[in-house]
């Protein structure tokens, strides 16, 4: 079996200017900090960032915003990182705000081969602008399209050497669906175990979805 483990120095080769990257986490909880830092270290530019929120200026993906490495962000919330709003108002950063549940479904669609979902969320609000409205059995829905990325960076508690993953508590959030929706998936895990040590019923993200991982302590 192929070795999926990388050290942090090897991660940089997967990052390219202009890449679309999904990063797991909710206000930085469940965000792979070392992988995010590696994007910073390599000085990658013009990133399209898909993530729930832009965290804090010194935490999670917030650092990429502060470093001005991001060209566009697709997120549900940017309020905890004032830098995001500043760059948006100055038209230095393109921000697409997406309702959180819609963001989750769009990512799930991207990983599941679906062309979109119909959601009632956002009907009658500015979220419906430029979107197709579809009536099903008398109720109006917005057609929301899939999101897909070049690379997804996810955070987990534990992996086995095959890449099977277990998340910890509220650090799960967007990580499992992002692991479905990118060409390359790199995980940052705190603990590495032998194959067979994670029971098949308890696997939360299956190994074949995870291309590479680094193992570091928090």
């Amino acid at each position, binding site marked *: 079996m192929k070795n999926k483990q990388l050290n942090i120095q090897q991660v940089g080769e997967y990052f390219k200017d202009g890449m679309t990257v999904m990063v797991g986490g*909710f*206000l*930085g*909880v*469940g965000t792979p900090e070392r992988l995010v830092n590696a994007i910073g270290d390599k000085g990658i530019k013009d990133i399209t960032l898909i993530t*729930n*929120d832009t965290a804090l200026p010194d935490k999670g993906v917030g650092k990429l915003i502060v470093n001005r490495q991001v060209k566009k962000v697709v*997120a*549900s*919330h*940017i*309020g*905890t990182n*004032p830098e995001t*709003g500043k760059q*948006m108002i100055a038209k230095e950063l393109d921000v697409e*705000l997406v*309702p*959180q*549940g*819609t*963001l*989750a*479904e769009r*990512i*799930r669609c991207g990983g599941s081969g679906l062309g979109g979902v119909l*959601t*009632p*969320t*956002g*009907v*009658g*609000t*500015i*979220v419906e602008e430029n979107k197709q409205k579809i009536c099903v059995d008398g109720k109006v829905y917005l057609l929301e399209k899939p999101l897909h990325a070049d690379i997804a960076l996810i955070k987990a508690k534990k992996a086995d050497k095959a890449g099977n993953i277990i*998340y*910890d*508590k*509220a*650090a*799960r*959030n*967007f*990580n*499992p*669906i992002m692991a479905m929706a990118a060409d390359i998936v790199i995980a940052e895990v705190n603990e590495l175990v032998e194959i067979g040590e994670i029971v098949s019923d308890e696997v939360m993200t299956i190994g074949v979805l995870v291309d590479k991982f680094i193992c570091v302590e*928090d």
Partner: protein
Amino acid sequence: MKAKERIAKRVAMELKDGDVVNLGIGLPTMVANYIPKGINVMLESENGFIGLEAVGESADPNLVNAGGQPCGIIPGGAMFDSAMSFALIRGGHVDVTVLGGLQIDQNGNLANWMIPGKMIPGMGGAMDLVIGAKKVIVAMEHCSKDGSAKILKCCNLPLTGKGVVDLIVTELGVFRVTEKGILIEEITPGVTIETVKSKTEADLIVSDHLIYMKNVS
């Protein structure tokens, strides 16, 4: 008791045993402190779990509420991912959501996520919550800091949801959104209907069964 506490205490009375409840950040979070004895609710945290407790046994960096603050989880609680969290919310599995409001109008429209020209935090999970929860309660102070009305004939801020609000609880009373308009059902002792009307732009219908606001003592 301060206005916010009175509001939170009154909202808590709306919760029924067994309800699945999502509480927004700020004032709505305070509702958890006033849930009556004998009423067991399951608090859903949209970042991915059910069984939220206000205070955890220990500060676990991976156990935070939707505001990113440390929290706990009750025995019998459960974790899930964001897609499942919003499947629960959008799918009608949440009985009650309590949110703050910037503006509500007599059509049940709610605006609470952005003010054009100011910083825009984003809607987070609010748009899903108002469309998906079986009952939407707005818990807020009756007027803006500048004294202007927040319960309007027609919202002029960008909406969070259209026709979604069921109940509004403020320090002045309890207001139900009905097909005919906004019905004041409870009023705070010492406050007159005239006072409430003067602080409300929407047409107010006074309930035939108007009572003093419950639980304000």
